[in-house]
């Protein structure tokens, strides 16, 4: 796994974090983690059966709409759940893509957002 754009994202998060008021903890997880789940696609983009799925990439950012150029991309392997950790407080926009064994990457899934509170 290789995480790109790390420096830029952390820099942006630091700036964002200064403007966020302290939030109450509302969940059981440790601060700065988000666990995601999704459904595996069963078709190719043209609707033909998908039988060479290889894995997924998660793309997330503090800005929207999501653009891999200014976000973070994480290769997570062929799973349908993944936990992002060590996130700074702030609002995150997150999507997931599927990749087949030939290296073809799907479009982004629908984008969701979630807020990470300060501890």
């Amino acid at each position, binding site marked *: 796994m*290789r995480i*790109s*754009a790390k*420096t*830029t994202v952390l820099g942006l998060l630091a700036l964002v974090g200064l403007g966020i008021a302290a*939030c109450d903890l*509302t*969940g*059981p*997880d440790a*601060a700065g*983690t*988000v*666990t*995601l*789940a*999704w*459904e*595996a*696609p*069963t*078709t*190719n*983009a*043209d*609707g*033909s059966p*998908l039988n*060479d*799925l290889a894995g*997924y990439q998660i*793309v997330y950012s503090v800005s929207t709409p999501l*653009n*891999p*150029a*200014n976000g973070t*991309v994480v*290769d997570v392997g062929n799973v*349908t*759940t993944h936990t992002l950790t060590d996130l700074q407080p702030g609002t995150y926009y*997150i*999507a*997931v*893509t*599927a*990749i*087949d064994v*030939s*290296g*073809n*990457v*799907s*479009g*982004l*899934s*629908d984008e*969701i957002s*979630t*807020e*990470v509170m300060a501890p």
Partner: protein
Amino acid sequence: MKLRWPSIFLVGATLFVAGLQEGHSQESRPITGIAFDWPTYRLEAPGSDNFPLTWCEDDNQYTSWGDGGGFGGTNTNGRVSLGFARVEGDYANFTGHNVWGGVDAEREARFDGKVTSMICINGNLYAWQSSGSGESALSWKQIIKSSDKGRTWIEDEFPQSRVVGNEPGRPGIPYFINYGQNYSLNRDGFVYIYTIRIVNPDSWRVQIPGVAWLARAPVANEAFTDIANWEWFTGLSGGAATWSPDSADRQPVLEDPDGMLRNSTIYVPAFDRYVMVTNHTARNEGNLAWWEAPEPWGPWRLFRKEFAWLNSETGAPDISNNATFGVFGPKWMGANGECAFVWFRPDAWNSVACQFLVDGTLDTSPPPRPAGLAATIISGARIDLSWSAVGDPESGVRFYNIYRNGRKVGSSNGTSFSDSDLDDATSYSYEVTAVNGVGLESEKSDAVTATTRTGDLDVTISSIAVATGRPYRVSEDGLAVGSPMYVDRSFTLSSVPEPLRGLPYIQTANDDKNAETGSSEFLSFDVDRTVTIYVAHDDRLERPAWLINGFSDSGLDLVSNQGGSFSLFARNYPAGRIMLGSNAAADQAQSSMYMVIVSPGSADVLPPAPPQGLRVISGP
């Protein structure tokens, strides 16, 4: 080794010749090698070639050339189809003088042709002449004669000497043995003629495999000028040579699987031996072999064999290694095995003093067979081989031969070989052998089998367009360790993952690492089939947007000889135009431009549908 030319030729020349003519008291000693004295190298008669040599009673040597002006001429100045010249003097001070044809010749040339072998007997010159070079040299050769040291030649004086015939099974291409001055060292009154078997009558090329036969006929009454008087060597009986007038009975005196074409053989009085020169494998590429034997019929033993002679010869002149063939000057044989070797290449006389070696042990044992042969499948057309070096304590290992499916496909001075132009999806079996300093070949290594990749793996990359206009280019040599990375740097690759070896790639300009940063339209090119594009991206740099969207991390890396690591991101494209972006903006003082590797890839260019139902199942 020291050559003692002055003492031999200023003091002893006439002495040793006189001594030898008294008889053959010298003990026969096998010749085990030859050393060349490169400071004595000379180039003469540029533009002319062939240069057989013989030695007459007037103490001059005589030679012949083709298609040039001879001594003092050029390829055009004084050019004749066939010329004859006199070579005066010892090797240390020899001079050439055109006798028949060429610049400032004593006589004009009167007919065309080529001469590849000459002898002088009873003051008469005899030469094997063909009507021309090339294929015509294979249609016939005949003996022509001059009784006035080359000033007059009568064409067709001996039509009954015509041999060859450009069809298999004919006598073969003829060459004389030279026996000292004016044939004086010959003991038995015969003229000996080697003929080389013609395998391919269509062109004047090395005949593979090479077979030399031997014929003889009496000197008396010029009987040797009529092939009806020839008798052929048929073998040994009780240690004595046997002869037959029927060429159907003849047996080879020498065979070389690498082939033969020309032949020059000379008696070496210092050691009472014969030395034969042959060429092999291919013409004009420095492929010469030197053999020695106690008798004209052998047994012939190789004491030196060269592929691309001069290429690796220490001290050799800085000339191309396209030697065609050579002879030893009969007059220039010294009492202690000194010699002078004259070879030609297109086009010039080249010569060097030399020394026959007898003190060494003739290496009669082949080197050990190579081990550790391994094959790497590079593509649908290429397999690379490597093996472990072997040594030969007697004469050293000079090179290795490579066999594919039992047939020799090449040789290598090192311990690797690339076999290309193979069929795809085809299994090949390889073996290698080691060849030592005298040309003896080891047994074959254990075989290794490899199957080329499947599919038509040719991809054409064209119409490269770069935003900066720098001259990117496609390297057709294929990606490999040592491949150049850029068009404007000497950086090379020190590590290439196996799946990418041999693939075409685009050499980019490292100066473009900071160009138009952030652009998604920087480099474009056409491909003529479905491909997987691998972008080798500097790990020190932020990964640009275009290299994220649609690309996946292959998990593979390239490493440069500067130590830089480049992750390979892959994406499939259909045939057509491919557009890539620039590097991302960053502090790029310590960074490099990306490279592009093109793999004729999967036909699958259809991405999956996007995943659905993304949700947070636990978290803040």
